[in-house]
């Protein structure tokens, strides 16, 4: 109970911290909307040439685009979020302060990143999706149950995305300069989440593997849950996400133990 209250307070503080920067949020909404339009017209051209590419019709494909824009900041599909801050704290030694707190490092950052995500989904996600829905013919479901399952899928997507970024960020304890690793993390996320093209588009073994990797839990699966196109049904999609979340969080925990045990906290 206490732990729940603490983590809720941490998440709330994460929410508030991002809510302070209103101009940045407005700029983000603008960027996402522009990016959405560019991708939308690219997809229209593609689907015009190859209808039912990846098993989607054109309005499903466009829905995929705008769901991607709505989740881009929230699920940190192009990096950002807690990762930059955590990495900076490792590099300059401020992480020592985090270790002086009577709380678990991973849980702390997870709670604060969930708070950030909640703000960015509302502040940067809803508006682009609404613009997309007004400008294009999207395949949005009418059933509240589908939306509820979609919300759960989005929450799991944020957890999986956090768990992945936590693993990358922890490598900073050994590397100190993790800029290259961050770039790799962003690139992998951008492609294997389905942000550039739905993963269902890719044929053969490559497509199979891409759809099984954890990144697909951060966009491909939530989009399929909303569209009702996940093979094996939405429940299977949610279970896939939950599975990856558990595996990756456990890996993060193991790496965290190794990092705090072996590695010197920088600076005086």
């Amino acid at each position, binding site marked *: 109970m*206490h732990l729940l*209250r*603490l983590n809720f*307070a*941490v998440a709330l*503080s994460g929410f*508030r*911290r991002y809510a*302070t*920067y209103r101009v940045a949020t407005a700029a983000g909404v603008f960027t996402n909307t522009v990016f959405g339009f560019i991708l939308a017209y690219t997809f229209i051209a593609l689907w015009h040439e190859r209808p039912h590419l990846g098993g989607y019709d054109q309005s499903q494909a466009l829905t995929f685009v705008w769901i991607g824009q709505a989740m881009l900041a929230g699920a940190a599909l192009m990096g950002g979020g807690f990762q930059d801050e955590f990495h900076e704290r490792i590099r300059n*030694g*401020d992480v*020592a*302060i985090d*270790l*002086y*707190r*009577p*709380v678990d490092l991973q849980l702390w950052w997870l709670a604060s990143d969930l708070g950030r995500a909640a703000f960015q989904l509302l502040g940067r996600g809803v508006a682009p999706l609404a613009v997309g829905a007004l400008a294009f013919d999207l395949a949005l479901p009418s059933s509240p149950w589908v939306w509820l399952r979609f919300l759960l899928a989005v929450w799991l997507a944020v957890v999986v995305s956090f768990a992945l970024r936590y693993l990358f960020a922890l490598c900073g304890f050994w590397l100190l300069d993790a800029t290259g690793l961050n770039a790799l993390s962003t690139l992998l996320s951008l492609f294997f989440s389905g942000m550039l093209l739905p993963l269902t588009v890719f044929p053969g073994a490559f497509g199979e593997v891409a759809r099984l990797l954890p990144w697909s839990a951060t966009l491909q699966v939530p989009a399929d849950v909303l569209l009702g196109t996940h093979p094996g049904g939405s429940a299977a999609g949610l279970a896939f996400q939950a599975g990856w979340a558990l595996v990756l969080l456990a890996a993060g925990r193991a790496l965290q133990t190794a990092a*705090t*045990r072996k590695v*010197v*906290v920088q*600076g*005086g």
Partner: protein
Amino acid sequence: MSDGDGEFIDVRELTKTFTVRRKTGLLRRTATQVHAVDGISFALRRGEMVGFIGPNGAGKSTTIKMLTGILTPTDGSLRVAGVDPWQERTRLVRRIGVVFGQRTTLWWDLPLRDSYGLVRRMYRIPRARFEENLARCVELLELGDLLDVPVRQLSLGQRMRGDITAALLHDPDVLYLDEPTIGLDVVSKARVRRFLVALNAELGTTVLLTTHDLSDIEHLCKRVVVIDHGRLVYDGLLSGLHEVGRGERTLVVDLERELPPIEGIPGARTVRTEGPRQWLAFPASASAAPLVSQLAADYPLVDLSLREPAIEDVIARMYAG
């Protein structure tokens, strides 16, 4: 497990060795052992306020990191409040407070009040206790008008006072202060020092203070522990430092006219002359009385004054020796 009496912090033969790998050729790397802390022993009683000093790289921070449980000692034993810091870090951190002059425990984008709310949840501080502690800090550190200001808008002195408050809300038994007055102006320094004196006197909080500002130590601590190159070079009263550090007092002598450097006064030597004024150095442990009477007998004295050794000089000499 008693920690009420006896040694509250007990450090014995504490050692920390780092392995540093250096490039020594195109592909070759050599590992060298660096003894950051090399067999230090000292102990603090409950309620003591002790200065922990040493030059940069002496091993102060490494020692503090071991005392707070974020580094494992290579060798030696270590107890804080009856607990092995590394083995039981999460239990110990509830009983310690840490303040870094150069880092902040506050959240940059949040007002102080919100940061304190998070601290309350983290340490599970009962509401009444929390309100009481916060009210005391707010009054003594004059934080009243600042509680709703985001931390990023605070001045350094204001932020420092905010940080000290954050470290004390959970009633820690031990407070580690690392350069708490660095970069502060005279007024802010005085305010922080007054607060620390009151804290130590009223609540009996044990304080270990690391600083390069020796006037902090002179205002706050009777006892100092000095380390250099990872070894303990002094542990005792601040006043005793002068003898160990071969401190010298200076007698400034004004003569009637310009004369050659004064000679033939046992135990004293002339270190400087400037017109009719001369400076004579003699050991801090010796009495000035016989010197003065002999000077008055042998030389045409107009005036004289006595200068005590600056603690900075004493410590600088200890490091050099």
